[in-house]
């Protein structure tokens, strides 16, 4: 049995419609080639259900059965893993570099000021009666104390910067969690039928990518298309409900921490939250080391000063005031009267036993924060050196995961990225198919014209 002409006409029309739809998808892809998170889409053509005839089947044209995103969830997982680690080490590295800067230039800082402090006392050993030399001792000591306080101030500012980052992170996370629930709702609604909510899914995937910069998450997709997100077993999104995170001061010493609404710390092995915690740990360690160093200088110098005599033969007073790196200063009594600087072990103006003893302090292993104890100079050098080594290691990891992220991103782009040449090729193919289908319709039209208008009646 021959197919009726109208059936052929319908076949042509189905092709016109299908390729028009395909061209629309191509146009969509081209339009979004620069859109962050966009996944290229492909139409799936299928032959329409044929008409059984004798003999065989009679084709009835083409239809679009699916417009799907070209996406690989394995690659997504890999990218998110790399995003988390990269964000963690990137944040930590930038902050450690800031902390290194806070410790002063490599040829200056506390190390040099400590050296000058001892040199001041060295000069005092040769001129203990000289008020100018005594003033120089006070000036050098003031610079050292100021250097300690300045470094602690820089650490405080760096810590304040991290505090702000934590608060910003919590706001950003909550905003994204809200957006995920909105998109969950849209996707659930859209996909109740047979349609794919491709663009909504792209937006949601981008949000999940961005969330993975903060922590490692468990993302579970439900049959309805919604996703649940949890971190460390704590739900952050359940279908259409978001559980906002909060900033809580916790730990010892306390620092701002991003916690779930249930009070669970959301730090995981990857992500910026881990970077925040690591930066706080480094700042605390540096502050503790500097405090120990300053406290050692204060107690060692003061114990010597108070066992001696000043230029006027009076019993020695404390040279330094304060108890740690944040409070160390030259004592008010000494600062206002250089004669109160204690150089003598006996009440004689030319005696320099105490200043010699303070000079000798630079060779004594009195700094307790190292194992075994070290000299004060070794102590500050170790602090700088350890920070440098730690920073080097973190920068290396940051670069490693940065490269890993780049590679994973390239792999994902190879699957879901738009290639203009490819789209233009598809466009030509669809255009030609459309033209051919139009030609079929014209031919059928001519055939109908022949039958209707030109056959003899």
């Amino acid at each position: 049995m021959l197919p009726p002409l109208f059936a052929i006409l319908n076949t042509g029309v189905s092709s016109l419609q299908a390729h028009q739809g395909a061209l629309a998808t191509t146009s969509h892809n081209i339009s979004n080639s620069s859109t962050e998170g966009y996944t290229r889409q492909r139409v799936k053509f299928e032959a329409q259900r044929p008409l059984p005839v004798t003999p065989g089947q009679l084709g009835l044209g083409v239809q679009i059965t699916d417009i799907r995103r070209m996406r690989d969830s394995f690659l997504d997982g890999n990218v998110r893993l790399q995003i988390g680690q990269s964000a963690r080490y990137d944040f930590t590295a930038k902050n450690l570099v800031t902390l290194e800067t806070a410790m002063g230039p490599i040829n200056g800082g506390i190390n040099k000021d400590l050296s000058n402090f001892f040199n001041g006392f060295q000069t005092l050993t040769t001129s203990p009666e000289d008020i100018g030399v005594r003033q120089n001792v006070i000036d050098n000591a003031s610079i050292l104390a100021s250097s300690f306080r300045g470094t602690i101030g820089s650490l405080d500012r760096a810590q304040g910067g991290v505090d702000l980052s934590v608060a910003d992170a919590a706001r950003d996370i909550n905003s994204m969690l809200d957006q995920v629930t909105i998109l969950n709702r849209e996707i659930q609604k859209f996909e109740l039928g047979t349609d794919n909510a491709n663009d909504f899914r792209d937006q949601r995937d981008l949000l999940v990518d961005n969330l993975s910069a903060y922590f490692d998450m468990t993302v579970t997709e439900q049959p309805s298309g919604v996703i649940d997100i949890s971190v460390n077993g704590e739900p952050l999104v359940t279908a259409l409900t978001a559980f906002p995170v909060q900033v809580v001061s916790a730990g010892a010493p306390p620092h701002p921490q991003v916690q779930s609404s249930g009070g669970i710390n959301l730090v995981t092995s990857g992500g910026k939250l881990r970077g925040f915690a690591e930066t706080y740990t480094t700042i605390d360690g540096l502050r503790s080391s500097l405090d120990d160093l300053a406290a050692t200088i204060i107690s060692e110098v003061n114990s010597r000063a108070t066992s001696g005599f000043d230029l006027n033969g009076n019993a020695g007073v404390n040279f330094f005031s304060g108890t740690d790196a944040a409070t160390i200063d030259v004592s008010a009594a000494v600062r206002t009267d250089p004669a109160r600087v204690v150089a003598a072990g006996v009440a004689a103006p030319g005696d320099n036993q105490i200043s010699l003893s303070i000079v000798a302090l630079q060779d004594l292993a009195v700094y307790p924060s190292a194992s075994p104890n070290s000299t004060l100079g070794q102590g500050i050098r170790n602090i700088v050196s350890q920070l440098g080594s730690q920073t080097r290691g973190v920068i290396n990891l940051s670069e490693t995961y940065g490269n890993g992220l780049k590679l994973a991103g390239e792999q994902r782009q190879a699957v879901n990225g738009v290639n203009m040449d490819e789209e233009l090729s598809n466009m030509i193919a669809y255009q030609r198919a459309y033209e051919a289908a139009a030609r079929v319709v014209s031919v059928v039209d001519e055939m109908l014209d022949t039958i209707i208008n030109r056959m003899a009646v």
Partner: protein
Amino acid sequence: MPVGRVSDQLRYLGLVPRYNSLLSRQLDVQTAIASGQRYQRADEDPLSVALAQRFSEDTSRLDQNIKNIQEAQAFGRVTESAVGNVVEVMQRALEIAVSGGNGAKSSSDRANLAAEVDQLLRGVLDQGSTAWHGRYIFSGTETTTPSFAAVVNGSGQITGVTYNGNAGILSTEYTPQETISYNLLGSNESGGSLGIFRDTGAGIDVFQTLITLRDNLLAAPTSMSGTLAKISDDIQHLTGAQAKLGGMQNRLSFSALLHEDQKLALTETTSQLIDTDIAAAVTELAALRVSYEAALNVGARINEVSLLTYLR
């Protein structure tokens, strides 16, 4: 890594990190050239930076030790000068003693010689209270007090000399962890192993020797043999102190030279560790610039060809 498909984002934007990397490296090299330092932070080479910091600290300490040595040497030179002057005085006293012991001298001649000895005594007293930079060099650590004071009778004649100093030692670090004492005491009557003008252990008292000589000259002619022996002992004692001072000066000079050599070595090593090798850095910068230009060129060429170019 075989990618297969190359998306437009990858094609256009994939090169941007490479551009940034090359620019960043150029900036690092430019900073190294401008600052003269290969490293700006410890993380760039923790070991080299730690070593450089230690060497810098050692250099600073050697610098300070050299200053201490210069101060001690200057102090020692003033001491040497004072002791030398006293030696000359005592040699003149020896001549006077020999001359005055001659029985042919009239009482008037002897009185004149006694008057000269009295002046010599006052001169020695002045030398005994020599000050340098406001410090009385023979007073031990009582450096703000004149070392000796004359005891005079009603007619203004010096009848004795008291020591106002103490037994304090002035010392300073001349090499790391080592100190040297650089003063000599005017008298060791308060303690100490050596007194220049008065040494209780050696039985030396330059002032008393001169007072005795003066008084002997004023008195009836008598034998000067005891006084001559005392003066000779005093001169020997003083020249012994000069030798000690000379030895200290030599020791300090040798240490200063050693420190200068050590400083030079430390400075060279530090420079090798952290200073920028300008020639190498400029070459590296030129190479990076070529790489950057090549990357931009390649990027532009890759991106200028597309199917779009050939479609009507």
